[in-house]
Structure formats: structure tokens, C-alpha cells
């Protein structure tokens, strides 16, 4: 009965019941959807976090980058300086590069993967001399009686048959022939033709008589005046010993291991001279002799080796074949050619080739961290050694030499690993096996440029990489590979943040609405409580009476909310996801943050339903708890207890301050006690909260604007993997300038140079040319560029501080004034102090250099830098070679002088142009890094950190744009409700005033002014605090907006109370 009456008395106030049931339904629904979306995003992000692996590669961009087996001392020095990245927040695992070499019986590396393919240690016999024409310098006064001088496509012939001056020299038969000319056939036969004399004479005999010359011109610098002079010289073609031809006897080592076959033996620089009938054991290098026979150049074992690379022998049982440097090297090559590379890691799937999908497990598993005695091998090892999972693989541990990773020596150590996994076969990864870090082989010297790899927390990857980069020594580059996690996670993270906002807003809204619900439906039931108390109703039954009605109302509403949210959640989450993807999906094309492969995120199709019932339970329990609290209030306030409260007389006694409505408002505000404190506190908190939100959102907006204004986005052309900026082959990088989006472009080109006296003499043979090329390639570079940042030495790090000659700065590199200047014009340059000290020159001093592609030039340093190492490069203005399009008068002036530019970087005019730039690049067909199917022109924009920050700020801003109006409305409604309650609690005073004949205006003024004063006090305080804290005058807008809501509530409440019958109020019992 009690319950029935309680329910009936509640639901009979229909309007109020429907309104609150609807509000509770909506709040349950929004809480459920907020929770559902939150849990969906969290669950999906957790699944993605488990699926995606972010790693950072730490590499040194050394001279021979990306040669993974280079022995580079500067790289080793930098490696030694490397910090402990395992301490960087966000780094889950840091593993410096650690690999070793092992040998397994029966394993042969496949063709093309062995390091000593060109080395030969063979015995040769039956050697015979082979002669060929060679070029020798000659003087004009050395000319014999009969001769031919060739000069480009003209020649002069002086023979007994006559003299022909400056006649054409054809290497092919022209369609129309002049009267006299010389022609060279494909087989090298040179013929003089004079049709007038009806003469056709073969001239090859001139070569045998050393009468065949070519005119040559070179530039020489006068050492005293420094002037350049073109010197004419002659080159004489003479018949000389070119090589020996013989037969391979015992083959200690060669790629194919054949013997009994013809071989050309080129003496090279070795001084090898074969005596007829002798047998020789030689160490050399295979070369292309231009014939079908094998060809070998005799070469020293290593630079400076005292042991001759050739030796004669009589018998094949000579100890030379078993115990000599020859046999040792043959063995070394044999061993080195069949190495198996062992790599140790505690997270093998996160090693770059696995993380990037190049390698993957075909069978079995990877060795786990701490696991010993097991390994995973590549398929070629498994196939060659006929290994299956569970089989044992015995190996001998080898030790690499300091300078050559493949120069292996036995360590005497051996291991036996059980094969637990087999990975696919991929080019470049033949003969590899992986073990856990626990099973790592003794540390080998560092080869190549990969210093290590860090496994990162996906969500902290960017920050971790930034911190790692800050710790890195010069020349070390950190590259993040996140498999596209950031791009895939961004919409979900944004959605999760929104869902959290919706959830907390719904909880706050629920609390506010349920407070009001409890107050109205329970707290104000004092009369009923009085009646029940007076009738001796037990406390428990009073509780039941009060709670039964609200339980039904709240129960029905939350149940409806739960059902509707469960039904609609799938659809709504899908819609939210679509919206978030449209809003937040970051464009990462061409970004340095999107290097490598990208995984497709699989979004779960099923949406959990637990948030529906959890939300329902939360709202329902909250309603019950608040109603229970208000039940206590209703009982405590019942009229039977009235008069127990203590009141103090006002300290100031009777007041005469103010007049009319203002006087009453002032007195009420001053003496209102908790009521006069609640209003300013509530308005201070709520308007302050809104102001804080607005200031924060504005701060985000300003941060984003500042970021856009202050950020310079650069980019560069790279290798396909996006990591190599230099040593490329860019035919026409200037095309990018046509986008109109760039503020600058920097390119470089380079050639080698040397000091004129430094070049040694090289024999004028094929091998001599090869040696010359090798020597030149080791000389320092003369780099033509229009900005130091693109320099191959500085492209991966910082440009060092330059000391300038007075009046000079870096802008000279962009000066177009050096274009088409005479060769003799001295060029300003930037050089390293080390090199300048070596040459004994200072800033402003001229020095002549011979340039690989351009004769002799004079340079004078105008800037110098101090850099560790032995950098001897010289930097000169690009305009000496070509002009950028904005300085050129025609496209020819911008063309790459030597076919390609090896590097190019550029700067966007504005970071606002970033998206437009991406579009342009895509439209023009530039490839993104990692796109092996695209064009070979790959462009990378260095925007990752910028884009991440901008996207994050954008997310917050959008979130605040969505949530702020909702929260503003919610806070406003709360203010409205508070003011309504405040005024309604004063109905009796209102009635007394009216009863005493106060005018409606005065009554309105009395209450409104009081509430306005209290409300504005809170708003002003919050405005002042936030204004001072943030310096944003706009916070006053939120305070004013909130005050409007509050005062509107107050005004409406006063009007509503005004409509009540004064007489009813006044004559009411209480």
C-alpha cells in the first residue's frame, strides 16, 4: 500500500514526471553512447597498439651510407658516443646493432651474395706475351718522318705518298665524302682515301712505326702568376706489352673454381714479368678483359703488403699451396664467401626487415627474449642444409677483421642451435639467422651505418624520436617507422577524446538533473513526511513511500535509455567513426612520418553492449542515492522539527541603507547566509569552468597559428626508402619549382679535385685507367651548391659554424654572377680548417686545384669551418655550373651539367601550403617513400612533428568546438535551475510583499537585483581571475553568457511566482 501510494503520488504530477523521465532517458542514452564509444575506441586502439609496431632506426649518414658492411671509423666513433636510449620515455626496447658471423658445414651462399667474387688465387702456366697499342706522351719535335696526327674529327697525314693537312677523320662512313679523308673501320683499320688521286691506303703501319699521334690539350696554371694556359701536347700510340695469356693450373680460389682454362694475366702495378716456361702462383682480381677468356690483374694482398702477389714455383706440391699467404688468402676468401650472418634480438619481429614486411615467418616461431639454444633461419639455409623445425644447426663462430667483415677467422667457438622458425627468402637477406640477445655471439666491430633500433610505444613514438634525436651525436639520423599507426589511430584518438567529453558531460548533467529530480520529487515532500510522521508511520515506510515513486520514474527512464542505446549504438558509433575519419584523418602522404610500409587497421565490427547497462545502472543508482539523501533532508526539515535552528541577530542591527527594491535586495543578499554564498560560488565555479575551457581552446588556436607562422617546412628528394638524401640521380629536380609553392630550392653537384702535384703517375693501360679512376674517386670533392644545407656532409645534420672573411657570407653560394665566367676566374669557396692548414693557406688566399671534370681552377676560401674528421671538401657557388630557374634566362641554363643532380632540398613558402604541396606532388606523379611501384623520384616532406602537433591541436580545438556549446548550454541550464530554485525558495517573501501592496515592479526588482548582485559577484570574480591568468579579455564573454542564463532563470522564476495566487500563498498553512 505504501509503495502504491508513493508511486501514485509521484506520477500524478504528470508534467513534471514526463519532463524528468525524458531528461533521465536522454542522459542515460548519452552516457551509454559516450561510454560505448569510449570503450569501442579504447578497445580498438588497444588492438591496434598490439598489431602495430613502431620502431626508430638509428643510423649514421657516413660517406659510404647505406653500405651495410662499410668499415667507417667516423661511424664507429659516433657509435661510441651514442647515449643510452633505453632510458628515453616511450622506448620499450633499445638494441644497439649486434651481429656476428658463423659458418655451417655445407652451406654455400647463392650467386651474387658473396663478398669476394672477384678475387683469384690461382696458378698459371704457359704464359705468353700479348702486345697492344698504348698511349704515350710525345713532343712535337719527336715527330718521325712519316706520321698521322689526329685532332678530334680532323687529321693531318705526312707520308712519302704525300701530305694531307686537316682532312676529315671518320669513324664511320659518311653519306657524302669529301675528296680526301681518313676513315677508321670497326676492326681498327685506318685508311687514307684521296679520290682525286684515286688513292686508298691503309695507314696502320704508322702505328707500328710509332707514327700515329693524337693532339691533346690540357690547362696548366702558371705557378708564379696563377694564370691558366691551354697547353697543346701529343699522344703517341705505341705497341707495348699489354698482358700475358696462359692457362689456369691449380685453382686455390676463384669464383667459379675452374682450372685448365685460358686466362689473361694483367701485371697491373705489381711489376709482374713472366719468364717463358715458368709457372706462377698469383693473387689478383678478376677483370673484364673484353674477351671470353677470364682475365685477372695481379694485385697486392692488401695495401702496403710486403709479400709479392706473385711467385714462381716448380711443383704443385710446393708448400706455397698449403702454407703461405696465398693459401691463407684463398682460405679467407672461401670462408668469407659462405658466411651466415647471425643477428641477436629480444624482439625479432620488430627488426626493420620484419617490421617492414620484407621478411616474415613461414614456419615456426621466433626465439623469445632470454631463450637460448634456438634460432630462426632464412629459407635458403633451411633448403641447402635440409633443415626442418626442431633440427639442430651446428655452426662455427667466426671473428671478422677490424676492416673487413668478411675476413673471417676461426674463434674455436662453436654453437648448436635448434631451428624453431624459418623465414622467407628475400634479396639481401640470404644466409641470415636470428637468435635471442641471450645467445648473441661475441661483439663484433661495427660495420655499416645502422647503430641500432628502438622499439617504441606507439603513442609516444614521436616524442621519443624527438628526444632520441636531441641526444644523438652529429651525423646520426633517427627515422621512425610506425607502420601507419599515427594515421590510423588519429581518428580513433579524436573520437575517444570526444567520447570521454560526452561521458563526463553526461555524468555532470546526470548529477545536476538528478539533484533537481531528487529535490523536487523527494526533498519537497515535507508535508507528506509531516503527515506520515504525525500518523506514527515507521521511518522505513516513509522511506519506501518517498523512494517508490522516484524508483519507478527513474527505472522506467533508464530502462528505455538502455534499450534504445543498445539498439542504436552500432549505427551511432559507425556514424561517429565516419565523421571522425572525415574530420581527423591526417594526410601523411610524402611525410617523413610515413616512411615504410603501412598496415591497414581492421576495425572491430561488433560494438560492446555493456556500456548500455552500465550507464543505466550508474544513472539509476545515482538517482536512488540522491533521492535517499533528499529523503533525509525532507525528514529533517519536517515541520515538527522546526524552530530548532539557531539564528543570530544581525551585527549591525537595523539597516537604513538603500531604498526601495535595492534596499530589500541588499539586505537579503547580506543576510542570506548560505544562500548568499551558494550563488556567487556556483556562478564563480560554473562561469570559471566555461571561461577556462574557452581560454584553453583559444590557447590551442593561438598555438596552432603560432606553429603555422613559425614553422618552416622543408623537403628533399630521397632514395626509395626515404632515408638517403644524397648520391641520388635527379634529372630535373627544378620541375618542383613550377609548383609556385616553394621559397627556395637547393641542389648540389660534385666532382673530385686534387692539388696538381699530388697525382701519382699511372701506367697508360686499361688497368692504369682503372687505377686512375680509383684514385680520383678517393680524392676530396669540389661541391657546387646554392646552400650549405644540401651539402652531402651536412644534409643529415647541422651546418657547422662558419668563420667568414670580412664582407662575405653564405649568400655568395647563391650568387648567379659566376655563371659563364672564364675558367681562369678564381672562385670563392668554403673549406674546412683542416684542409686549409694542410695546404698552408688562410682565408682569401688563392690555391689551384685540378678538377676531375674541368681542368685546373683557382679557388680562394672566404669561409672556413672546424669539423671533426678529415673532411676536405670545398664548397663553391652552384652558378659556376648552372643557374636555378629563378635566376636562369632559359631552361638550358638550369640543366644538370653532368646529367644528374645528386641531391636537392627545398623549403615551402609557408607551412599553410603543406596540403597544397602534397596535392601537387601527387598530381605530378612524385612517389612517396616505400612505393616500389611508383616512379623513382621520391620526395619527402619533413613535416611529421609539425603535422602531429597541428593535428593534435586541431583535435583539441574541434573537440572544444563540439563540446563547448554543449557544456555552455549545460552550465547555463544549471545556472538557470539554480536561480529558479533560489527564487522559488522565496515564494513566501514574495507573497508577503505582494500582500503588503508592493508593486510588481518593486517585487521583481527586490528579487532580481539580489540574484543579479550575487550572480555578477561570482561572474566578475571568475572573469577577473581568468582575465589576469590568461590575459584574454574574451573570458568576460563566457562570464556574461553564463550570467545571462542565470538571470534569465531568475527573471522567469519571478514571473512564474508572480502568477501564483498571493492569497493562496499567504493563507497557506506554511
Amino acid at each position, binding site marked *: 500500500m505504501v509503495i502504491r501510494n508513493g508511486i501514485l503520488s509521484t506520477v500524478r504530477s504528470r508534467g513534471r514526471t514526463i519532463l524528468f523521465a525524458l531528461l533521465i532517458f536522454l542522459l542515460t542514452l548519452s552516457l551509454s553512447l559516450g561510454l560505448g564509444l569510449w570503450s569501442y575506441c579504447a578497445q580498438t586502439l588497444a588492438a591496434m597498439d598490439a598489431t602495430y609496431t613502431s620502431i626508430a632506426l638509428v643510423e649514421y649518414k657516413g660517406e659510404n651510407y647505406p653500405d651495410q658492411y662499410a668499415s667507417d671509423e667516423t661511424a664507429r666513433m659516433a657509435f661510441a658516443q651514442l647515449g643510452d636510449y633505453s632510458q628515453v620515455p616511450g622506448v620499450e626496447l633499445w638494441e644497439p646493432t649486434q651481429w656476428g658471423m658463423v659458418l655451417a658445414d655445407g652451406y654455400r651462399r647463392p650467386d651474387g651474395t658473396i663478398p669476394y667474387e672477384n678475387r683469384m688465387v690461382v696458378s698459371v702456366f704457359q704464359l705468353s706475351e700479348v702486345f697492344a697499342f698504348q698511349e704515350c706522351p710525345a713532343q712535337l719535335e719527336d715527330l718521325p718522318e712519316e706520321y698521322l696526327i689526329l685532332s678530334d674529327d680532323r687529321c693531318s697525314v705526312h707520308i712519302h705518298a704525300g701530305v694531307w693537312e686537316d682532312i676529315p677523320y671518320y669513324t664511320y662512313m659518311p653519306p657524302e665524302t669529301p675528296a680526301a679523308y681518313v676513315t677508321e673501320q670497326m676492326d681498327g683499320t685506318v685508311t687514307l682515301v684521296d679520290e682525286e688521286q684515286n688513292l686508298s691506303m691503309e695507314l696502320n703501319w704508322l702505328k707500328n712505326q710509332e707514327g700515329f699521334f693524337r693532339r691533346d690539350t690540357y690547362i696548366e696554371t702558371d705557378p708564379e702568376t696563377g694564370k691558366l694556359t691551354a697547353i697543346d701536347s701529343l699522344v703517341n700510340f705505341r705497341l707495348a706489352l699489354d698482358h700475358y695469356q696462359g692457362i689456369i693450373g691449380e685453382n686455390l680460389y676463384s669464383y667459379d673454381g675452374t682450372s685448365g682454362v685460358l686466362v689473361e694475366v694483367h701485371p697491373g702495378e705489381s711489376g709482374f714479368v713472366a719468364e717463358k716456361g715458368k709457372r706462377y702462383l698469383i693473387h689478383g682480381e678478376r677483370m673484364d678483359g673484353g674477351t671470353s677468356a677470364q682475365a685477372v690483374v695481379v694485385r697486392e694482398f692488401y695495401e702496403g703488403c710486403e709479400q709479392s702477389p706473385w711467385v714462381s714455383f716448380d711443383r704443385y706440391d710446393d708448400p706455397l699451396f698449403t702454407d703461405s699467404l696465398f693459401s691463407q688468402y684463398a682460405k679467407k676468401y672461401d670462408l668469407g664467401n659462405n658466411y651466415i650472418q647471425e643477428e641477436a634480438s629480444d624482439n625479432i619481429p620488430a627488426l626493420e626487415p620484419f617490421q617492414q614486411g620484407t621478411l616474415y615467418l613461414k614456419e615456426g616461431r621466433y626465439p623469445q627474449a632470454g631463450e637460448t639454444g634456438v634460432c630462426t633461419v632464412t629459407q635458403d639455409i633451411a633448403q641447402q642444409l635440409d633443415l626442418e623445425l626442431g633440427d639442430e644447426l651446428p655452426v662455427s663462430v667466426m671473428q671478422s677483421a677490424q676492416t673487413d667483415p668478411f675476413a673471417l677467422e676461426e674463434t674455436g667457438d662453436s654453437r648448436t642451435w635448434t631451428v624453431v622458425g624459418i623465414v622467407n627468402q628475400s634479396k639481401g637477406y640470404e644466409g641470415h639467422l636470428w637468435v635471442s640477445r641471450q645467445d648473441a655471439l661475441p661483439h663484433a666491430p661495427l660495420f655499416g651505418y645502422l647503430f641500432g633500433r628502438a622499439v617504441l610505444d606507439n603513442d609516444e613514438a614521436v616524442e621519443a624520436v624527438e628526444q632520441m634525436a636531441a641526444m644523438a651525436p652529429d651525423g646520426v639520423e633517427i627515422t621512425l617507422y610506425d607502420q601507419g599507426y599515427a594515421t590510423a589511430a588519429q581518428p580513433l584518438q579524436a573520437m575517444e577524446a570526444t567520447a570521454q567529453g560526452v561521458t563526463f558531460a553526461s555524468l555532470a548533467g546526470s548529477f545536476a538533473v538528478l539533484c533537481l529530480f531528487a529535490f523536487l520529487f523527494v526533498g519537497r515532500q515535507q508535508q507528506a513526511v509531516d503527515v506520515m510522521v504525525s500518523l506514527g508511520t515507521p521511518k522505513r515506510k516513509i522511506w519506501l513511500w518517498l523512494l517508490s515513486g522516484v524508483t519507478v520514474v527513474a527505472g522506467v527512464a533508464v530502462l528505455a535509455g538502455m534499450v534504445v542505446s543498445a539498439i542504436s549504438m552500432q549505427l551511432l558509433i559507425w556514424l561517429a567513426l565516419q565523421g571522425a575519419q572525415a574530420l581527423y584523418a591526417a594526410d601523411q602522404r610524402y611525410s617523413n612520418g610515413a616512411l615504410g610500409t603501412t598496415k591497414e587497421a581492421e576495425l572491430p565490427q561488433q560494438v560492446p553492449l555493456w556500456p548500455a547497462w552500465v550507464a543505466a545502472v550508474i544513472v539509476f543508482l545515482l538517482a536512488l542515492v540522491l533521492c535517499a539523501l533528499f529523503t533525509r533532508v525532507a525528514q529533517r526539515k519536517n515541520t515538527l522539527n522546526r524552530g530548532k*535552528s539557531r*539564528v543570530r*541577530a*544581525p551585527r549591525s*542591527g*537595523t*539597516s*537604513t541603507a538603500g*531604498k*526601495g527594491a535595492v*534596499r*530589500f535586495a541588499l*539586505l*537579503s543578499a547580506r*543576510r*542570506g547566509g548560505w544562500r548568499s554564498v551558494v550563488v556567487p560560488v556556483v556562478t564563480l565555479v560554473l562561469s570559471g569552468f566555461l571561461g577556462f575551457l574557452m581560454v584553453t581552446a583559444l590557447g590551442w588556436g593561438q598555438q596552432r597559428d603560432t606553429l603555422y607562422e613559425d614553422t618552416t617546412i622543408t623537403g628533399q628528394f630521397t632514395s626509395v626508402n626515404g632515408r638517403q638524401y644524397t648520391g641520388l640521380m635527379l634529372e630535373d629536380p627544378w620541375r618542383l619549382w613550377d609548383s609556385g609553392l616553394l621559397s627556395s630550392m637547393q641542389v648540389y653537384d660534385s666532382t673530385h679535385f686534387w692539388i696538381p702535384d699530388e697525382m701519382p703517375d699511372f701506367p697508360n693501360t686499361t688497368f692504369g685507367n682503372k687505377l686512375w679512376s680509383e684514385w680520383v674517386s678517393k680524392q676530396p670533392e669540389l661541391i657546387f651548391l646554392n646552400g650549405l644545407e644540401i651539402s652531402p656532409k651536412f644534409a643529415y645534420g647541422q651546418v657547422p659554424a662558419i668563420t667568414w672573411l670580412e664582407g662575405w657570407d653564405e649568400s655568395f653560394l647563391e650568387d648567379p654572377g659566376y655563371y659563364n665566367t672564364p675558367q681562369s676566374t678564381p672562385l670563392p669557396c668554403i673549406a674546412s680548417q683542416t684542409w686549409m692548414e694542410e695546404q698552408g693557406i688562410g682565408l682569401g688566399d688563392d690555391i689551384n686545384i685540378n678538377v676531375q671534370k674541368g681542368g685546373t681552377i683557382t679557388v680562394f676560401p672566404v669561409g672556413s669551418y672546424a669539423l671533426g674528421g678529415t673532411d676536405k671538401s670545398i664548397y663553391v657557388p652552384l652558378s659556376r655550373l648552372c643557374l636555378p630557374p629563378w635566376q636562369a634566362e632559359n631552361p638550358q641554363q638550369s640543366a644538370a651539367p653532368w646529367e644528374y643532380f645528386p641531391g636537392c632540398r627545398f623549403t615551402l613558402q609557408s607551412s599553410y601550403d603543406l596540403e597544397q604541396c602534397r596535392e601537387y606532388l601527387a598530381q605530378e606523379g612524385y612517389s612517396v617513400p616505400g612505393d616500389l611501384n611508383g616512379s623513382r623520384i621520391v620526395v619527402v616532406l619533413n613535416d611529421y612533428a609539425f603535422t602531429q602537433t597541428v593535428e593534435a591541436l586541431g583535435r583539441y580545438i574541434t573537440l572544444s568546438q563540439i563540446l563547448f556549446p554543449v557544456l555552455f548550454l549545460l552550465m547555463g541550464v544549471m545556472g538557470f535551475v539554480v536561480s529558479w530554485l533560489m527564487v522559488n525558495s522565496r515564494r*513566501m*517573501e514574495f*507573497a*508577503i510583499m*505582494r*500582500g*503588503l*501592496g*508592493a*508593486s*510588481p515592479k*518593486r517585487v521583481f526588482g527586490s528579487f532580481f537585483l539580489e540574484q543579479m548582485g550575487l550572480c555578477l559577484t561570482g561572474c566578475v570574480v571568475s572573469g577577473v581571475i581568468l582575465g589576469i591568468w590568461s590575459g584574454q579579455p574574451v573570458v568576460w564573454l563566457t562570464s556574461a553568457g553564463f550570467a545571462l542564463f542565470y538571470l534569465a532563470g531568475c527573471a522567469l522564476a519571478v514571473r512564474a511566482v508572480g502568477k501564483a*495566487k*498571493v*492569497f493562496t500563498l*499567504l*493563507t497557506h*498553512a*506554511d
Partner: protein
Amino acid sequence: MGVLELRDVSYTYQTQYQKVEALRNITASFDGGRVYAVVGKSGSGKTTLLSLLAGLDLPTEGEVLCHDVATSQMKLEQYRREQVAVIYQNFRLFPLLTVEENVMYPMELRGTSPKEAREKAKILVERVGLPETVLGRYPTMLSGGEQQRVAIARALGMDTKILLADEPTGNLDTANSENIFSILQSLAHDDGYCVIIVTHDRTLAQKADDILELKDGRMVE
């Protein structure tokens, strides 16, 4: 012709479930210098009659006349402010104003300066038998009898000659009731007030100069 007059007054109102005829064709006249007691059982229409006399509402039929002018022709606030003073059963004092301020309030409504109103309030409080010490206290600090005296003082402060009292002794003990009634009686007899008391207390009613009885909204002769 009395100070106050009811001419064929009826008052009907609509509740959620029914139409209630609270007063039916009441005709009566009230003069100054006399105490009237309106008696009747609960629901007979006593309080409704008082509210019409107090100008809190208008009759649905007939007229309430004050000095021959129908209340329907007046501004009710002005009528309440200038013509009638009402003492309610539950005193109806402003809880956040001191006794003195409560008494001053109607005077201020009529434009009296605070200073003057304050002096007058002191006199009135003294007149209803309260000590000066209560002036600075809040009404909730006083006993029921004291609060009723304050309500009377406030009514006197309105400076009208018509005083309406709704169960003025309803919440008081006998001693206090008698004191209050004697004050009202003195106001009528000594100062010429027209005092109309609505009560169901027959003993109190017997002390009035005239008794009007209501039954089911009708005047009983």
C-alpha cells in the same frame, strides 16, 4: 454606509477536479470603531472572504466597496498598500529583516523616509507591548505571541483604518490570545479602526462587537 461593504459577493474558483463556490451572495457592511468576528466551520469561506476584503483577489460576482469605491475600480496593490492592513495567522514576517525593518517595510512602500519610518516603528513596537530590545532581532528569534505583535505593529504601520486579521490567535496560548485581542479591541474602540477578525474560536468571537457566521459560503443570519 460602512467603511467596507460587501454587495452580493460571490466567489467561485476551479480546482483540478471541480468548480468550487466559496462564497455565495454575501452582503455585509463594516464600520470603523468596531470589532467584527467572522466565524464558521472549516471550508465555510471565511478566509476567502478575508482575501477579498484584503484585496488579494476580486469577487467573481458582486462588489467589495471601500469608502463606497469598488475594489474592482482600484489598483489592488494600491488598495492593499493604502486601505487595508492584514494580520495573518502565521504572521508572514520577512525572515531576513529585523523586527524594526519588518515594521518599517509598509511605511517605506508608502514613501515614508527610512528615518521617519524607523522612529515610527519604535513607537508601534512599544505600542503592541514589545520591548525595544526586540527591534534589532529577526522574527524567528521571537516567540509566536511576539511575532504576532510584530505583525500587528506592521499592520498599524500601514496607517490604514481597516485591519483584517486571519486567525490572529490561532497559534497562541490563551494568555497571548487575550493580549492580542485586547490590542485589536483597543485599536477599534480607541482609535476608530474597523477590525475584522476571521476565527473559528467561538470564545474569541464572543468578545467581538459583531459576529458574522458563514456556512457553506453563505451568510447565516
